[in-house]
């Protein structure tokens, strides 16, 4: 059931990305180009998504269980640290270079764009590199602590 709803959520999310025009990197770059001929569309996409999403999250935040009766697993991390900011800055640079972020790139793959596929393969490679870095850092930290257990967020 949760697998079916995840599929439907992904499907509806993807259709929203297509309808909003965000599958098209040229449109995203048009928004990020403040100094050029500016296309404010992306701001309205975010506005529309947040207007509807906030109702859902407001209700979800007051519940202890999901509609399926399983526990709510919304994020509880609140730390604002260098890791968050530098990661976000890095992501923004990549976003501004190609005009793709993860969701629209996956939708572009489904629409048959080879360039979307190349971006996604590189993105997954980047995520695997992150996993590798984190694992070796955890191992080093564990060795330094003299304990066997590495911790991870």
């Amino acid at each position, binding site marked *: 059931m949760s697998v079916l709803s995840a599929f439907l*959520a992904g499907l509806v999310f993807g259709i929203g990305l297509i309808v909003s025009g965000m599958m098209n990197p040229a449109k995203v770059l048009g928004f990020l180009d403040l100094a050029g001929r500016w296309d404010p569309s992306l701001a309205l996409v975010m506005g529309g998504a947040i207007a509807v999403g906030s109702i859902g999250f407001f209700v979800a935040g007051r519940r202890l269980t999901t509609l399926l009766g399983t526990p709510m697993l919304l994020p509880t991390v609140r730390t604002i640290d260098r890791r968050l900011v530098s990661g976000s800055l890095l992501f923004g640079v990549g976003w501004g270079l190609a*005009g793709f972020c993860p969701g629209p790139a996956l939708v572009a793959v489904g629409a048959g764009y080879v360039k979307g596929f190349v971006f996604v393969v590189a993105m997954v490679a980047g995520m695997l590199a992150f996993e590798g870095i984190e694992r070796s850092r955890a191992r080093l930290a564990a060795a330094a602590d003299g304990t066997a257990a590495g911790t991870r967020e």
Partner: protein
Amino acid sequence: MNIDWTVFTPWSALAGGAIIGCAAALFALVNGRVAGISGIVGGLLRPSLPDAPWRAAFVAGLVLAPAVYAMFAALPGVVIDAGYPVLVSAGAIVGIGTRYCTGCTSGHGVCGLSRLSPRSLVATLAFMAAGFATVFATRHIFAL
């Protein structure tokens, strides 16, 4: 600031945004999770997780969205100006960056701001600023 009224699509942007918001709300209420694409994909890359099926299902939904959309209307055109070297470096940077900040436009931008998360607000301001700066550099300083 010069708004290009020939490309600005306010109604489809708002409508598409509302659809995205519905998907995020559905996912929060039924699955109890944040619909953050980078986190959902990133979680698939960790070995032996019991939640691989729902993650794969969400990604499958995203990838199949164009096929479903095409049953009702013609898909809008897509212009990808970036060449392959740029796509590869941009993809790798997005992959690493989103995992470090634990979110992207969907997780922090849409869901995080919907939840009034200060952490997501900081992340969104940072990646927006970096995106603006990058496009300014590539289009107006180096004129690539």
